[in-house]
């Protein structure tokens, strides 16, 4: 279709058969003799100082090997956020802290011969806590006189620790007040998004051991192997060269495995005992003591001219980071930077945000990365102003969205912890997304006011979205490719496939560039001893950045092959040569040589060399993918239950290198987003303890909760991406909240301002409306 042999084809995921037949691929699927099992003691208090810890009783228990507390571990302030160096997150935590800041904060760890013994030992650790007043609400936390959560010496990167403010962001363009004054219609609304968790079905798991030479090996379920190596070295104060991090297959991440929260403990146990160690989170620990989405309260105010063109947009976000500041600045920056440029017609823009500490679980990276919370509010306010103007939701979006060749001042003003980068949109097909999506959902037939008399009422809603592809001028990936005797290639790259199919996408990129079948590409990824560096799996960077690196390396290898072929053919214009089906062919003379022959020649006989190359990729822009989402819901007025009926996602991710895998990313995101919109929510006791830390009480969607989902890929060509590709993995989680919110309004004329949209809230909103 597009003239490509392997790009745009549905190659089966290269690791899928091994996974579907249960090969031992995950972190905890292998075990070593003599392994120590680690269990962790957590704080029962939301805020307290550890006056003393007595581990002597626990140590007496037979087969307990080691107990760790703040007393016998390095006190190095760092961030657990696995971000590029220098991390834009504050250095506000130690491996074990003297002060605990939420129910579930780490107090001690036990390494023992079995898990049971480790659990038993935890019960015998005596901790004297001095309880402190706690604060759970971010607004309260920022007030004068609130308990100060981070009052320790030496923390850095916190905006105002005395007021519990992790970060404060202010970005302006034009004159916002004048912008509203000069608008004909102004609408403002506020939405509050809740605590929720990623729920990868594989929890965090780490195994550490010393290799034959006494070097530390960390086999871990991570999205960021290279950042793990760097941060473990930092925390344990050992050289990077003494550590090898291996990423096996990962059982889902969605952002939660972009944190270094197990590795340093397990590594420390191995270094102290010279024995293998294993630390695997339970489901409850995954909920309480890993990471969550940042709960946020977002206010959006839009002013528009009579013709519907936006004149001013103001967004205020208040983000709750919980007890530690990981990803606080960057997630919340993205709340503005990934949303506001979508409507670049407004000359007057203001984005202000505060990120607060509270005594609740720690928020971190989560698919969508702040944009989810931003769109939840923005896309509902866009509908509200459309109604005031008497315009259709699709119409108002059509005249306001960013187009090819255009830019937004926000790109430059708001980066990831530093100034951003000016960029112009080079690929976009938003009108087409809206057109195909409205058609597929049957928008214009269904938008007429639904029958209000029936108990079950249907409604439809839409949302328009963008994200980015990698972090410009920050994210870097690298790859090495080498040729073998049979014309196969090894690809060694640092990119981190956590279930997304990146390894397969990479194989397709190499196949296309070197003219060999994907079966002849052996992909080995993310082993810090073997592969080049890559920032890891986050910021929608896999295909774009890691794939870009692989593409660059393949181009270099291609050059080397052509150079050798010149001599074999006795022809000197490499422009005449093509690579196809494992051969180099001269289109001029018809001469042909196999890659296998070239490999034998160069490895053993003539022009001896290993044909191989290493290359890197860093981008000066972050090309946004775009998506238009549509949903039809049915609401039962008697029970308040919302049932999603049909979901349509029209998505522009550039050229989809593997459409079937792209579809999987889109649907997986949507269903995760539906869960966040309808059921998923942390519930806390009065004392800040999470009370629904299991799948019975924290409901994620099952196969019977999903609507009929239709994905439409609208192909554009992104000149900056490998073979025209942009990202696809995150953007689609941003749609369900605003689309369902807008559909609820269409169905019943109600807006619910506090997520999730539970039956109780629907009934309450109906009651208030009736009153």
């Amino acid at each position, binding site marked *: 279709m597009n003239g490509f042999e392997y790009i745009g084809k549905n190659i089966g995921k290269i690791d899928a058969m091994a996974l579907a037949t*249960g090969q031992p691929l995950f972190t905890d699927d292998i075990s070593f003799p003599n392994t120590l099992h680690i269990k962790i003691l957590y704080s029962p208090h939301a805020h307290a100082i550890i006056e003393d810890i007595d581990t002597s009783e626990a140590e007496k228990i037979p087969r307990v090997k080691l107990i760790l507390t703040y007393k016998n571990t390095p006190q190095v302030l760092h961030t657990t956020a696995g971000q590029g160096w220098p991390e834009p997150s504050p250095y506000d935590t130690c491996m074990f802290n003297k002060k605990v800041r939420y129910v579930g904060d780490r107090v001690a760890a036990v390494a023992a011969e079995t898990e049971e013994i480790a659990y038993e030992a935890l019960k015998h650790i005596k901790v004297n806590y001095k309880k402190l007043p706690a604060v759970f609400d971010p607004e309260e936390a920022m007030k004068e006189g609130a308990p100060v959560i981070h009052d320790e010496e030496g923390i850095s990167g916190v905006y105002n620790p005395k007021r519990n403010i992790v970060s404060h962001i202010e970005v302006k363009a034009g004159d916002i007040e004048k912008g509203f004054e000069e608008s004909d219609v102004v609408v403002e609304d506020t939405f509050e998004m809740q605590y929720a968790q990623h729920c990868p079905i594989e929890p965090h798991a780490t195994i550490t051991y010393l290799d034959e030479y006494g070097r530390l090996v960390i086999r871990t379920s991570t999205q960021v192997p290279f950042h793990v190596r760097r941060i473990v070295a930092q925390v344990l104060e050992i050289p990077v060269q003494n550590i090898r991090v291996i990423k096996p297959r990962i059982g889902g991440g969605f952002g939660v495995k972009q944190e270094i929260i197990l590795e340093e403990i397990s590594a420390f146990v191995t270094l102290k005992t010279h024995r293998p160690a294993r630390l695997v989170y339970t489901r409850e620990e995954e909920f309480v003591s890993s990471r969550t989405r940042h709960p946020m309260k977002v206010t959006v105010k839009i002013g528009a001219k009579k013709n519907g063109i936006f004149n001013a947009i103001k967004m205020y976000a208040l983000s709750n980071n919980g007890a530690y500041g990981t990803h606080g600045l960057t997630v919340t920056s993205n709340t503005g930077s990934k949303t506001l440029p979508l409507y670049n017609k407004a000359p007057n823009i203001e984005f202000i945000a505060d990120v607060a500490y509270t005594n609740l679980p720690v928020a971190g990276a989560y698919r969508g990365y702040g944009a989810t919370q931003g769109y939840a509010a923005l896309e509902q306010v866009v509908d509200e102003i459309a109604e005031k103007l008497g315009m259709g939701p699709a119409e108002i979006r059509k005249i306001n969205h960013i187009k090819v060749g255009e830019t937004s001042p926000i790109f430059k003003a708001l980066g990831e912890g530093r100034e951003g980068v000016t960029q112009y949109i080079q690929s976009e097909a938003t009108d087409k997304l809206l057109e195909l999506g409205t058609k597929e959902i049957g928008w214009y037939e269904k938008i007429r006011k639904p029958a209000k008399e029936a108990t079950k009422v249907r409604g439809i809603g839409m949302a328009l979205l963008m994200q980015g592809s990698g972090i410009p001028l920050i994210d870097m990936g690298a790859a090495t490719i080498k040729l073998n005797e049979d014309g196969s290639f090894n690809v060694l790259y640092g990119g981190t496939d956590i279930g997304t199919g990146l390894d397969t996408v990479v194989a397709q990129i190499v196949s296309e560039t070197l003219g060999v079948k994907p079966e002849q590409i052996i992909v080995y990824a993310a082993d810090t001893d073997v592969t080049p560096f890559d920032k890891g799996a986050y910021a929608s960077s896999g295909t774009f950045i890691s794939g870009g690196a692989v593409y660059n390396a393949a181009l270099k290898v291609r050059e080397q092959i052509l150079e050798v072929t010149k001599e074999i053919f006795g022809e000197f214009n490499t422009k005449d040569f093509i690579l196809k089906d494992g051969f180099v062919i001269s289109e001029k003379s018809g001469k042909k040589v196999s890659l296998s022959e070239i490999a034998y020649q160069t490895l053993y006989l003539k022009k001896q060399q290993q044909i191989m190359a290493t290359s890197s990729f860093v981008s000066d822009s972050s090309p946004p993918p775009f998506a238009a989402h549509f949903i039809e819901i049915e609401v039962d007025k008697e029970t308040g239950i919302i049932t999603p009926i049909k979901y349509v996602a029209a998505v522009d991710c550039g050229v989809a290198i593997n459409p079937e895998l792209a579809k999987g990313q889109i649907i997986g995101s949507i269903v995760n987003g539906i869960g966040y919109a309808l059921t998923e929510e942390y519930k806390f006791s009065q004392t800040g303890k999470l009370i629904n830390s299991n799948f019975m009480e924290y409901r994620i969607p099952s*196969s019977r909760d999903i609507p009929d989902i239709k994905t439409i890929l609208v192909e554009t060509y992104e000149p900056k991406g490998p073979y025209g590709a942009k990202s696809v993995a995150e953007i689609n989680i941003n749609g369900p909240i605003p689309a369902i919110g807008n559909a609820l309004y269409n169905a019943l004329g109600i807006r619910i301002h506090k997520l999730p949209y539970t039956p109780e809230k629907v009934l309450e909103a109906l009651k208030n409306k009736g009153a």
Partner: protein
Amino acid sequence: MKVHYKINGEEKEFDIQPGELLLDVLRRNNYTEIKGNCYLGTCGACAVLINEVAKATCTTLAAQVNNAEIITIKGIGTISEPHLLQKAFVEKGAVQCGFCTPGTIISAYALLKNNPDPTEEDIKRSIDGNLCRCTGYVQQIEAIKFAIKLLKGGK
């Protein structure tokens, strides 16, 4: 105490503690194809066939199913000789991280054993105890339908 099982066609005997869960006993003995860690029967990743019925091993006592016949994902098909369900999952993009996959295929296998001609609703119900956070289920359902088609094709 000792328990005997027939696992994937092989006779096995294990030493267990009374009260031990089948999941722990099997994983400890290298049946690591059985996943799961919720220990509440809520995620389905630890499912195997016990006497032909798909069951969560995390809520089953090892002693309670002494002498049972157990089939894990490896008993359904192997990497060199995969079952059509496994092939269909690969082909239809139903495997993302793959952590849920063994359990989900076990459930689908059990369904097709009893009902070779299930409706879409039957399919959804058969895997509704197998949580998947990656796929959003659509391609899993498509894969099961595709496998049914292949199986009917007489293979």
